[in-house]
């Protein structure tokens, strides 16, 4: 059973303490919804779970040790001069997935074929977000770390995304995500977590 466990974690940046002595655990099929005011350290915590940042104290333990992780940060990770398809194909190449997975994922995110081929700088914010979230389709991974994934998505996009969440959780996956909006209704296994300042 996959498991994510955070033990007495602290993060400081300069003389500010972003996260003090945090412990939590996420089990298979669970979605942890991180909430908190701006500057409460939600993004820092996600970056830490992803391994982009080192904790000042405490540790993050995962089970199994080779747990696979998806990361969709608040930045989409799309080069503005390349098309959505080219960006995703590059990502697939980096991660050893077949190139065809990129197109399939974008289509699954209902990004029109025309929009897949245009440089991403010409896409709307919602379309870019769809392209970024298409990574979740392109490769199956145990843990999803998502920073404000709903940002810019329209109603159709949100519905699509909540379907993806439900399928992932149903298959025993784990999600840790931040969102200022309320999560889509009817998701099983959602746990709210308020990060205090």
């Amino acid at each position: 059973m996959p498991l994510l466990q955070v033990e007495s974690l602290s993060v400081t940046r300069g003389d500010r303490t972003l996260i003090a002595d945090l412990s939590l655990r996420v089990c298979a099929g669970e979605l942890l919804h991180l909430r908190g005011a701006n500057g409460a350290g939600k993004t820092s915590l996600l970056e830490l779970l992803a391994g982009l940042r080192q904790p000042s104290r405490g540790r993050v333990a995962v089970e199994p040790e080779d747990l696979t992780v998806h990361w969709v940060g608040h930045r989409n990770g799309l080069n503005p001069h390349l098309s959505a398809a080219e960006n995703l194909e590059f990502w697939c190449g980096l991660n050893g997935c077949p190139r065809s997975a990129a197109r399939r994922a974008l289509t699954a995110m209902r990004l029109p074929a025309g929009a897949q081929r245009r440089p991403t700088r010409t896409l709307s914010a919602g379309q870019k977000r769809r392209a970024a979230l298409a990574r979740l389709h392109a490769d199956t991974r145990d843990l999803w770390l998502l920073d404000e994934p709903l940002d810019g998505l329209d109603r159709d996009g949100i519905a699509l995304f909540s379907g993806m969440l439900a399928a992932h959780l149903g298959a025993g996956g784990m999600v840790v995500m931040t969102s200022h909006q309320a999560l889509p209704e009817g998701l099983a296994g959602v746990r709210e977590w308020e990060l205090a300042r």
Partner: protein
Amino acid sequence: MWTWFHRLASPPSFYRLAERLAPWLGLGAVVLLAFGWFYGLVYAPADYQQKDAFRIIYVHVPAAAVSLSLYSAMAIAGVIVVIWRIKLAECVVVSIAPVGASMTAIALVTGMLWGKPMWGAYWVWDARLTSELVLLFLYLGVIGLHEAFDDARAAARACSLLAIVGSINVPIVKFSVEWWNSLHQGSTIFKMGKASISPDMALPLYAALAGTFLFCAYAVLRRIQNELLWRERGTSWAKEHLSAVTVH
């Protein structure tokens, strides 16, 4: 062994150790430098070739020796930062840079002043002068990089990486310029075999050398203390210390 090391590397205990050590280093530096410079500048016989101009070695040689040693020390601390992420080592890297830069600048200026009567020019493109100049640039680079960061820990790690890469570079620079051209007189103290310097000249030189090392150790230690206090200003030990200082 390891617990001892950990205790030493913890900010409050190192701060206290430095507090006890620093006055002795400072005192030693003052005594040795006073002796070395007074003896060297007043009593030592004039050089038969260079006359009184040679007396600048009592400042130049120690400064040059220390500038290189400090860079190596900074790079070693840098390795510790990169591998073990020890806070104290971060403070060491950051604290050495300004002291090292000043010593390098002193070595350069005194070298130029010495060069004028000896070689007839303030600046000659010689191996040691040029590599000392590159060393100054490397020090200034570390200082500039440190200033550019907001976060103290990220800054110290970046400086450590730069110091490490620079330290690999220093001998290559030295060698490249040496290959390229050399006018500088051979090293006098560390020459193999018999020393080519009279004992009356050597004694004050050794004293000045040791004094300069002690002075730099003192300056670096004090800077480390400041850096530790600044970084840990939110913690109880630093607050306690600061309030104790203000009461006095």
